[in-house]
């Protein structure tokens, strides 16, 4: 079974990568195995648990449910693209640390990307909106309470960031 490889150009975290993959290669496998971006995790590989979430043009999608060849042309953001610099954390990442919005850390990158996507379109989400946003990401450790708190905290801090000093 010699399968023809397809060349695909992936824009990931601002850098362009040209890779040759089997057409059946999922975006998740391509990110992990070819680009060594292992922050995206396989959980169920059938689109339920959300552990493989990445952002495509800012929208949270399941990288296990799409082929790498389908991602050609999109701006892909993985968890590795969120940190502002070595040793630094984005406000959402820092809020997850402050609230301890995780335990084992396996679903965490996907949760944080989902939270980023939510806060980009809705800087002041209600509790119900946060729950709706993360309802496609299964966490088996936390019971979600500290995750919801982390996202609310991040939203609060990110809104505060843009206030003039005398009002903050």
């Amino acid at each position, binding site marked *: 079974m010699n399968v023809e490889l397809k060349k695909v150009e992936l824009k990931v975290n601002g850098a362009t990568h040209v890779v040759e993959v089997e057409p059946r290669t999922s975006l998740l496998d391509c990110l992990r*195995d070819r680009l060594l971006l292992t922050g995206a995790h396989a959980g169920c590989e059938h689109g*339920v648990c959300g552990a493989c979430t990445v952002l495509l043009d800012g929208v949270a999608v399941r990288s296990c449910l799409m082929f790498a060849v389908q991602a050609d042309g999109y701006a892909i953001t993985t968890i590795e693209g969120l940190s502002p610099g070595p040793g630094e954390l984005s406000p959402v990442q820092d809020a997850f640390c402050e*609230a301890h919005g995780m335990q084992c850390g396996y679903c965490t990158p996907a949760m944080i990307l989902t939270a980023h996507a939510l806060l980009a379109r809705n800087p002041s989400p209600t509790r119900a909106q946060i729950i709706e946003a993360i309802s496609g990401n299964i*966490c088996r450790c936390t019971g979600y309470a500290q995750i919801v708190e982390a996202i609310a905290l991040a939203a609060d801090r990110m809104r505060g960031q843009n206030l003039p000093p005398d009002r903050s």
Partner: protein
Amino acid sequence: MTAPAKFRFVSTDRRVREDRRFVVGKGRFAADIMPPGVKHVALVTSPHPHARIRSIDKRAALAMPGVHYVLDGAELAAATLPLAAGLDTPNVPRRPLAVDVARYAGEWVAAVVADSRALAEDAAEAVAVDYEPLPFVLDGEEAYRPGSPLVHAAHGSNVLLDRTFVWGEVEKDFAACPHRLKHRVTWGRSATVPIETFGVTASWDPWREILDIWASIQMPKYPDQTAVALKLPASSVRVHYDVDVGGSYGVKRGIKHTVLVGHLARRLGMPVRLVEDRLENMRGGDMHGPERNFDVEVAFDDAGVIHAMKMRALDNVGAYAGRSPFQLGKPVGAIVGPYRIRSVQYQAIAVVTNKTVQEAVRAFGQSPTNYAIERTIDEVANRLGLDRLEVRRRNLIRREEFPYLIPSGSTYDSGDYHTVIEKVLQRADYAALVAERDRLRAQGMLAGIGIAACLEPSGGNSSFEPLLNPKNETTTWMDSCRISVDLGGSITATMHTSSSGQGHETLVGTVVGEVLEIDPDRVRVVRADSLNALPSNSPVGSRMAIMLGGAAFHAAQKLKGKLVAIAAHDLNVPAERLTYREGNVIDSSAPERKRSWAELVAIAHRHIHRLPPGMEPGLSVAHIMPVPTGGTLPTPDGRVQMYPCYAFEFHLMLVAIDPDLGKPEIRRYVVGHDCGTVINPKIVRGMTMGGIAHGIGAALYEEFAYSGDGLLMAQTFMDYLLPSAHEVPPVEIVHHATPSPHTVFGQKGSGESGYLGAPAAVASAVNDALRPLGIVVNSLPIKMARLGDLIAQARRGS
């Protein structure tokens, strides 16, 4: 207790150090470890619940591109020993690949090794196995009866364990009581189902004769059992404990995966890995939880005080023995729950069937047992027309009765159950909660209040092993910590096992910082591998706050003692006159006389001539700690101290059920939690909330359901329903702290009690809601479809 009266860092709301790597995607999970040239395994699995394997034709698979090898059970069995079993059941051998007979649908029959996982999967489909289907048995009670199809013919029956314990004057107490109640309560087959499946990579170096293993493991004695099965000395197996485990809660005991991959790595001379896909995980990963029938009978008086209990627990452990029958043993350590039941008869039965193998699940069998006890308390109250809370108050062990010896031989260390309950009732405004239930009922909803208490035996000991297997005299377990101070004066603490989200690095840092009076963030915490590790029995049995925390405490005390001894010698004053303060050692009678941390480090590492005579140079100390109260064999009638510490939780909830949908909705949830001294509040809160979510899943959604022809129906996340953020309600936690006398800070375990109490509380609430309809639901999970049918049936009948 040797702890200081108040703490600098313990119990303060500090961040969890592990979190920083996880939020940036830099956790190092098993699937992230890809040695150069690693080959991938995919599995050929049995489509039958029970079948003789007539032949395996590998030719087509071997001819496919990228395929290196196809391994069958006969070849593997010739090269390895069977996997360790908990009980003495030599005729129930368990191996990674089926030999001659496959005993459950999904059992691994052959393993394909290829250049990529995709190629291995392609080739696995091309392996042709000829099966002869055999009669099978799925139901545990049926398997227990003589004449049912035998899962292991050589064993002669399907019964692995059938032992009846009698503790106290059970018959006399029954005869003396005016009331009896007997019912069957059933716990359905579910598990913890972590989002990360099990993964393991093995690499054999034939020149060094070392098998390196990276695995998502949570298992006592994993390196040793791997070595025995592979016929290697344990000094040739190096398990790397610095692998982050993506959730486990008991189940990640991938010993069969490891022996398979370890053998392949040696056989092929290449690194080999197996990372389960979800299908392999659900049906063949051998990680299902208990499936248990309880027949409970209690004898009680007019006041609802229960004097005696008879419990028969029959557990369907699946096709092979493993360690799972021990899950009937651990509940012996809290067989009366938090209640003063003075005599108990307990029959523990483990049977094999043609289902997936059972493995350890959070609380190791205690959650089903607690559910059975709590259901019984509710029914006793209902029978007498008494308030369920009042019946509990009358039966609960009272604060002044601790330490309290239960009939089965364990002494509960400490507790104040009535106070915890009162705190919960106050927080919830119980009268208002009842009024809200009645308001909902008046509106036509079904509504109920759920009440459940639970104990979390903690400190993870081995007592259930000799209890259920007389050939096994493992009387206790231990854990360890090593601390070294380097030439520059910085501190590194070493732990000796892997973790799966419990925050153990934070635990060690906090404890060492507390004792040494320095910022915990200055304490580096690393993990040994199994070849340079001190003894650990891994983070099972809710033990690490007690055991790793205890070992770190004692190691830090040793270090402090060494620093004081060095200063005493160098200052030429008696050690008793010296005080250790934040790294410095000071003469309390002349404070200007002191030695700083830097000076003491320099003496220990460089100025050896200034060390006390005979003292080892350097600043490295280690402590290996056995489980407090452990170390004794059970009595002939099966009494033993199971675990040292007993945390308490009380769950209270309001559930509303739309009678047309049958959908239970948790409207309010308050839990009272007493795990003694809390070391890290963020971690304890997370453990409690996560355990509750997991318990809600077991109570309402999750079940490994089988079809009549023996196939696992719930084998994806479309069928096996894990609670999402929508299903888990906000939970209010009320804290109380009754310190344990057995631990260094008064801490107890906290990883399990959410899961121990939530299923019982949900069952209690649903039954309270259904009582007006005359419905009793005594089996879990209470799925929405079943609930809807029961309600519809009852309404039609009325």
